[in-house]
């Protein structure tokens, strides 16, 4: 039996690893997006007492290797009496980590947001939260679309680190097969194929979303 045939017989294992990776990725990146939006909103009001610690938190996260954050949540939190299982630690770490990156992407775009539009909103009686949700955030998302697309791919790749904290995802499946049958090259080639395929699909989708913005003059396609 060739190595490829072995892998074909183990296809269920790959498939469930793949589904697990996609679930983790989907949950984590959705949560990260929400975290990014919330952080941006909290940074909006120029209250330094809140803004300074938030900036420190965001920068602290961004400067941390992801793997260490995942370790901390999984192995470190129990010593504070908080015990998360591997899945929740993994999703939580991804969400917070990439949420901070997304917040930073948003913040950069917010700095160049035309102040005249804010004044127009104030003059029309908008309060801060409505203005943020309806006028600022949609434009910032359109403006930062290419960077968000990039972040999606980083987040997808970071899911592979979760094998270290025993999450049963795609890389873990390849790892276990390559260990059992000693066929590391082929096992990991299959996994690379999966990651590439998902990344390419995301690239295409994100690019398509660009049309939405470019019709409105956000032509950073």
């Amino acid at each position, binding site marked *: 039996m060739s190595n490829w045939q072995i892998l074909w017989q183990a296809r269920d294992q790959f498939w469930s690893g793949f589904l697990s990776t996609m679930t983790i990725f989907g949950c984590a990146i959705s949560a990260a997006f929400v975290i990014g939006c919330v952080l941006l909103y909290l940074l909006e009001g120029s209250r330094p007492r809140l803004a300074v610690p938030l900036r420190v938190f965001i920068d602290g996260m961004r400067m941390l290797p992801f793997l260490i954050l995942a370790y901390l949540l999984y192995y470190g939190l129990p010593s504070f009496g908080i015990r998360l299982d591997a899945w929740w630690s993994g999703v939580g770490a991804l969400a917070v980590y990439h949420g901070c990156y997304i917040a930073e992407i948003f913040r950069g775009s917010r700095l160049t947001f035309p102040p005249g539009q804010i004044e127009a909103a104030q003059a029309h009686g908008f309060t801060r939260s409505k203005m943020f949700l309806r006028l600022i955030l949609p434009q910032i998302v359109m403006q930062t679309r290419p960077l968000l697309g990039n972040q999606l791919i980083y987040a997808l790749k970071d899911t592979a680190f979760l094998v270290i904290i025993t999450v049963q995802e795609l890389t873990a499946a390849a790892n276990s097969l390559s260990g059992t049958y000693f066929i590391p090259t082929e096992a990991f080639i299959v996994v690379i194929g999966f990651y590439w395929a998902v990344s390419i699909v995301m690239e295409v989708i994100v690019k398509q979303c660009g049309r939405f913005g470019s019709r409105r003059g*956000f032509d950073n396609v």
Partner: protein
Amino acid sequence: MSDLHATAGRQATPEPPAAGNSHVTTAAVSIRNLSKSFDDVEVLRDVNLEVKQGDVVTILGSSGSGKSTLLRCINWLEQPERGTIHIAGERIGMNADGRPMSVKALARVRARTGMVFQSFNLWPHLNVLHNVTEAPIHVLGQPRQEAEARARELLDKVGMSHKQDAYPNTLSGGQKQRVAIARALAMQPEVMLFDEPTSALDPELVGEVLGVIKALSAEGYTMVIVTHEMAFSRAVSDQVVFLEKGLIIEQADPETFFTRPRTERVQRFLERHQ
């Protein structure tokens, strides 16, 4: 608070009061003893101004004289240090006890004014129709259908109904400004504030915007207009105000102002702008 958005029959009578409506006694805008500084430089000094309902007041003055600042104080985009401003009898910015208004209350009073900016400031992610309906729906809480019907009427009024599905980036400056006017009108404001509405426009587009504003004045809208267009000011105003270094140094009906200015300063200004 059911009357949060609808003050004193504003919704019941969507059209502005006709000009010369003599039984109306509350001024649309009443400014008393207004002073404003930027970093120790007094930009407005003890300004007093009454704008009657249905009146058009144009504010003239050289660059840096404080025209924009005065206009922006009226809807509290700038906070003056001293003085009071009332919009149709309601104080803006401060409560009666002299403390700053709550954010919500301020937004509600602001919504009783409409502002048109030199640089249009349309919201680029919304099409023309939605630029006009955005605030009526999400600030005033109007039902979408009603807001859209009203927006179409207003776009028609400013000659932009054929572009209701277009996005702002596809419009000319004059078209953007006409949409911005419709957007402000949609709030059914007590007063419309214009800050040099044609200064960012190519000369051939100025006329279409001034034409719209003239039509509004004929309909009896109350307006305060900062402008450098002398002929327009003369044609449209009930009152002309001349600002110089933050002081109102002359205030008169257009006939008097443009033909018999009292001060030498205004004479020189008018000569330069002939």
